[in-house]
């Protein structure tokens, strides 16, 4: 079946095919991708999707550590999908279940699908940009209007009663399904994804610390000085348990970004214990020279690599 868009291109010389007005390919593509506001002042869902996608990319690009980058990718990519489509999918599945179980209600609940979408590509695009329309479900307002129209032409009180009941049931089902969809989206977007993120970041950090412990445990057997490097060991290193210095940080050591393995400055000189060299900026000793924006461009300049495990060989 030829879609209206194809119809227009093949049969009707539309203004885009018009010889007198030529839009360049970029203009035409921009029109198709971004289109326009459905109404002035109301961004269409595809605009929301486009803006959110741009924001997600920037969050991933400017992440300050690999774990933040992964958290953004998981949270926002899933958030994008479920925010725009999750509710529609849940509604569609539940409505189809109800329609199968109660066909008489299904007549009120299901509507024509978006008839402008024929062919797999158009179906995919339609699902992506307008899942609600693609699914083909009647809204509660539409059900009400159908009900009123049927009642207008009812021929008996019994029929009025039956139709009224069906419409009421249908509207209640639509309302409850929408509520369920909303709750499911909220739980998934707000709680589940967040908890998964926290758990995965925690697991990653735990794994790194565990690996660090194992590495430190092996080194004494090889006849090496406990610790990563004797030069880097903090002055209060415990010869019995070399990890003690790391596991019992001073209050200052627990400040963000503090390298509790000790610090080797870029010139390879002897490590400095920053807590014995307090200045007005306690971080100054750790900061590599960097431009104003350089810190965002690459995590290699950020304090992230002063974290355990990122510049210590594991």
């Amino acid at each position, binding site marked *: 079946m030829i879609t209206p868009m194809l119809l227009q291109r093949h049969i009707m010389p539309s203004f885009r095919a018009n010889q*007198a007005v030529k839009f360049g390919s970029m203009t035409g593509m921009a029109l198709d991708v971004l289109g*326009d*506001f459905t109404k002035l002042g109301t961004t269409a869902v595809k605009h*929301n999707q486009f803006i959110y996608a741009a924001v997600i990319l920037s*969050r991933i690009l400017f992440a300050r550590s690999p774990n933040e980058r992964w958290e953004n990718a998981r949270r926002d990519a899933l958030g994008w999908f479920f925010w725009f489509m999750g509710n529609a999918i849940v509604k569609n599945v539940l409505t189809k279940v109800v329609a199968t179980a109660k066909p008489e209600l299904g007549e009120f609940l299901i509507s024509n699908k978006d008839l402008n979408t024929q062919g797999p590509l158009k179906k995919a695009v339609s699902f992506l940009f307008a899942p609600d329309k693609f699914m083909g479900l009647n809204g509660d307002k539409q059900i009400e209007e159908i009900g009123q129209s049927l*009642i207008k032409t009812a021929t008996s009180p019994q029929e009025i009663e039956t139709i009224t009941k069906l419409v009421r049931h249908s509207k209640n089902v639509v309302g409850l399904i929408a509520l369920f969809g909303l709750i499911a989206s909220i739980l998934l977007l707000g*709680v589940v994804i967040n908890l998964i993120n926290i758990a995965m*970041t925690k697991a990653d950090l735990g794994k790194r610390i565990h690996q660090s412990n194992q590495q430190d445990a092996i080194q004494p057997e090889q006849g090496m000085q406990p610790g990563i490097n004797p030069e880097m060991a903090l002055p209060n290193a415990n010869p019995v348990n070399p990890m003690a210095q790391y596991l019992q940080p001073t209050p200052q050591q627990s400040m963000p970004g503090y390298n509790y393995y000790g610090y080797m400055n870029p010139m390879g000189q002897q490590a400095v214990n920053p807590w014995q060299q307090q200045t007005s900026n306690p971080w100054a000793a750790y900061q590599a020279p960097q431009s104003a924006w350089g810190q965002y461009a690459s995590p290699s300049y950020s*304090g992230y690599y002063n974290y355990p495990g990122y510049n210590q060989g594991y």
Partner: protein
Amino acid sequence: MRLNNTPPITINRFNLPEAEAKVGKAIRLQTQPIQFGAISPGMIGPLINVNNAAMSTLANNPLISLVASDLGGMVLPRSTIELFKRGPDAGRETFLREISGTLTNTFLGGWLGILVTSQLAKMHWFNPKAMSFKAWIDKPTMDAFQVVAQKVMQNAAEKSPQTIRQEFLDAILQNLQSTDNLSKTSKYAERLNYGRLWDRHTMPVGAPGATWQDLRDMYLRPGPQRTFHIDEMVENRFNHPMYLDQVEAAKARFLKANGLTSKTELTAELKPQFETAIAKVEQLLKFQIRRELTDIARMPSEETFIKGLTDKAAKEGFLTSEASLLNPFEEGKFLIGRKPTKDILSMLKYYMEEHINRALTEAEAAIKAGQAEGNLGEVAYKILTEKGFIQEASVESKFLGKLLGSLKGLLRPILPSLEDGLMPYAIKSKLFLTIIPIVMAGIFGCSMVLINNEITRRKYGGKTFFPGEEALRQQLQGESQS
């Protein structure tokens, strides 16, 4: 509970004798309004009603729905979880990130769109045709209307403007169809008139009737609120002494600047310059008049008129709140897949005002002036769609003229111009008015990431780190200690 302002429905208003004849006995009249509330008794009934009302609001307002799921599903739970699980820094970052996301993703593009449009629409260099962008028609709908306009206008038969308008409206209104499935089932199709705008009193069922004619008449009824004759009104108003005085003043200024008086005859060299200068002044004045008239005409009655159309379509015809537009010229094909009926009807009004009526008025004038040949419909269709069909003097603003002059070559294919047909002009304008705000909103959203990072960095004396991860590291340290 009354929903959607539905008035009381009584069956005694409709088809009673016919219905009684069918069942063979007298029918008890239903005189009470039918209300589709919850059917559950006790406490659950009111709860279901509240839920239905809330979900209906969300379903019928996509932006509210997005904001509700964003606030409820992202901002509040995520900020709370981060605050309690990973500390105040992570909580603050999350709150700022999510709340700025709500603003950017849902509202900012639209707000910037209104701002950009309100400014650009007033600027003659951008909007030389003084088209009203309040009359916004989305591109798929415009494409669909163009298909119908072409069939109606590109016709060998000579038609009057009113006939063309009627035929165009008929083709659209008769082919609107409700998207619900029920009106297509054998059980209900006839009773619901196949979900069409056809009047139910019309016999046989399924033929166009009075309702669509009423609707068509509502569109065609002349009056300032319809702005059908706005181009004639521009000409009439231009003849007011207030505007003619301004033209005279411009003439005097030109003569004075060239060291002449009104009694001096212009040289052959100066005459074309003089005419061009005065034509520019007249065009600018007409631009202003048209803009003022369209704005005045739309304001008071816009919503009432569109609501009247929609109510009539739903209550007297059999359209529901969502409709498709069948292709009037090809069986089984659709021109508009699925759209709110109110939007289709209001865009039809805007299309009549800004495209069909303007094209017809300009075509009549062009034929009278000998600028165009052919029948009215064909000329009007060319004005509607083609570029450079009727050449008009180009006017540039004093301030932006030079800048635009240098950019003209670059922007020419995408900037709306006087030479464009009405529809390409509208499409080009809309491209600008959409993409600029959307890109601006995207840039704002992206910059919020940097702002959020910078706040944390400054708080910790220039150290760049991810607070959520740092908090977890500290937790792990604590666990190891214990």
